[in-house]
């Protein structure tokens, strides 16, 4: 890390100032508390303190039936609820060995990719806000609102959907949903250029993010970083490609990887850009799915009773934040004996103390913003 330090003051001995950032702070994305040891503006050490949003999700699940756990998974990552329910349902289906109808898989992929767009769009806006650009967030919220409206049409809820169930989805898509989604995509795609002009190629934005918080390939892998944050470091790893689930093996899309266009591979600009490019890939996937969605009954495979055999299962899913894993242990009853969630944002947050050492307070905000954490998922 020594080469990326801005000021070398190793020979002067002064006392560090401890600065408490959070839990109430404009840009800690929820209730994260950072104990920052600073020397002037330069950060020497960071201790993230989590647990302010702990809701005992995992322990609570041990007293609920498999169906009752679904709404709680929604509330883990509240910015991509569809992904969490999908991930959980996949784990339960794996336990039950269920065959899922084709139509259900298509609907699930459509909702998942819409959710990925919503989450990344939100990230772009909030990342701009962290850097002091106020306008992108309102523009992005407008587009996210359209997606949320689509979800409202689909499920009746705007944020926490409880839509994907083990074996199917709660109800079939409404009549005009496909057409409206297509309309949305047609309007949204040209708008991405605006964000490119306002933020990605802005000189100040590049100054603030390029070469800041460079995450090397091997360190990212060692820390268990996943999702867009990992891909920004140049690792081509996406579960949708490497361990295809659902119908992703039939779809044609690319996995954007950080190339270091503005600085080094794995800097904050790359982490931003990978998410920006992923929106475009999601649009591509959505168009393919919407064109070829088959007919069928979405409730066909819904099990009457979820009572898996004794045993354990681990299932992985690529959410908008990374690799969500569900470990479920069953002892033959209708309630799980243990549910453990692998939270991608938690692993991504672990890298923060390493990345921020030697940078300034402003850069800590940049790096934290670029990791795109959701505290609901970290604390569970």
């Amino acid at each position: 890390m020594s080469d990326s330090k801005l000021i070398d003051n190793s020979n002067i001995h002064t006392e560090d100032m401890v600065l408490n950032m959070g839990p109430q702070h404009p840009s800690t994305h929820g209730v994260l508390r950072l104990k920052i040891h600073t020397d002037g503006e330069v950060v020497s050490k960071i201790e993230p303190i989590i647990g302010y949003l702990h809701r005992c999700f995992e322990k609570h699940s041990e007293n609920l039936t498999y169906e009752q756990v679904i709404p709680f998974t929604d509330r883990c990552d509240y910015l991509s609820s569809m992904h969490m329910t999908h991930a959980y349902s996949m784990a339960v289906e794996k336990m039950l060995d269920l065959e899922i109808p084709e139509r259900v898989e298509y609907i699930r992929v459509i909702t998942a990719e819409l959710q990925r767009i919503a989450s990344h769009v939100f990230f772009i806006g909030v990342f701009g806000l962290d850097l002091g650009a106020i306008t992108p967030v309102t523009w992005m919220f407008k587009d996210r609102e359209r997606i949320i409206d689509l979800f409202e049409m689909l499920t009746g809820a705007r944020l926490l959907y409880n839509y994907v169930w083990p074996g199917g989805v709660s109800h079939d898509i409404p009549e005009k949903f496909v057409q409206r989604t297509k309309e949305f995509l047609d309007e949204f795609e040209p708008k991405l250029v605006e964000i490119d002009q306002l933020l990605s190629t802005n000189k100040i934005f590049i100054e603030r993010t390029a070469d800041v918080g460079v995450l090397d390939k091997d360190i990212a892998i060692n820390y268990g970083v996943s999702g867009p944050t990992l891909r920004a470091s140049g690792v081509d790893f996406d579960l949708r490609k490497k361990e295809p689930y659902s119908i992703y093996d039939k779809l044609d899309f690319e996995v954007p990887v950080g190339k270091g266009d503005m600085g080094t591979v794995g800097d904050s600009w790359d982490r931003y850009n990978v998410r920006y490019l992923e929106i475009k890939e999601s649009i591509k996937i959505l168009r393919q799915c919407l064109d070829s969605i088959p007919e069928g009954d979405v409730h066909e495979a819904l099990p009457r009773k979820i009572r898996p055999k004794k045993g354990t299962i681990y299932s992985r899913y690529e959410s908008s934040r990374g690799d969500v894993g569900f470990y479920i242990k069953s002892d033959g009853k209708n309630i799980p004996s243990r549910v453990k969630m692998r939270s991608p944002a938690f692993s991504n947050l672990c890298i923060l103390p390493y990345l921020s050492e030697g940078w300034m307070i402003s850069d800590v905000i940049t790096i934290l913003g670029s990791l795109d954490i959701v505290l609901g998922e970290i604390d569970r």
Partner: protein
Amino acid sequence: MSFVDIIINSLSSLELNYTITLLLAVVIPGLIIFLLMTVNAIVAVYMERKISAFMQDRLGPMEVGIFGFKGGKKFWGGIGQTIADAVKLLAKEDIIPKDADKFMMILAPFIIFIASFITFVGVPLSENFLISNFNIGILYILAMGSVGVIGIILAGWASNNKWSLYGAMRAAAQIISYEIPIGLTLLLPVIISGGLDVHSIVDWQLENRWLIIHSPFTFIGFFIFFVSGIAETNRVPFDIPESESELVAGWMTEYSGFRWSLFFLSEYTNMLIISLVASFVFLGGWGSPMTIFNIIPGDYMYLDGPMWGLFWLLSKAVVLIFVMMWFRWTFPRLRVDQLMYLCWKVFIPFSIANMLFVGMWEVLF
């Protein structure tokens, strides 16, 4: 003729006591400046809200009216919002933290307020609408403009809050650094026109041409001055002293109510002062746009007069304020070391070189 002169002249016919005359000559302009500052803040805040709203596809304030007048559909909607806000601010609880240095914390907003207040004494609004005409006009504006930083440091230190301290230190470093390019670029009109006071600079421009197009170097000088001015007023992209997403509210974190509104008032006043100074130094002051090239000598008399002068100078200032707001809602924020880099390694060398070249230009042409 300046405002103070006019008052003393008109009072002398009444044959009042000398002390009373002097008192009136101080109090009346003081009230006028205060009124100007308040009106400016109210109008500028409304303008800022509407501009930001239109840039972000919103409507901005639409509900609060004034005297039963609610305003039109879009632009004039919510015209009473800032007045309601001002009343709200004055009625708010004034919180002083337990461990804060009470005396200094109370003192700080007044120092900041007084700094922008007395700067206004030397800033013209038109040919005769100048509170007091100093023969060292520009020097006075420069000197008084930098008094406010004492208040900022006091406010940050006395709040006994680490965020405030960071904000204050950043603000002090930033404002003191950017004083230098501002001072160096304000020397260009002095070199060219040969006078430090407001009238000689503007009269030179009215007789010849606006300074911004006088030579390529004054053209660069204008931009250095304006960008440094934005940094001096702590606005985006140079708002690091009060950067919302990093330092919560910087040196204003612990202030509320009336004291906070004094900060607010002086911030918007500083914006107006920077815009007015930029207008009268580089953009021809109270001259109409006809004077920009002065192709036909004497043509500047067209659309000229006390009222027109006020109109032209204020219009130029409002355009510059609009540009400042435009920046604010477009750019992200710089980091503190990048800000210092911009000042010490870009602006200061450029403005020193600028001075040299302007001197050469004046000798050659």
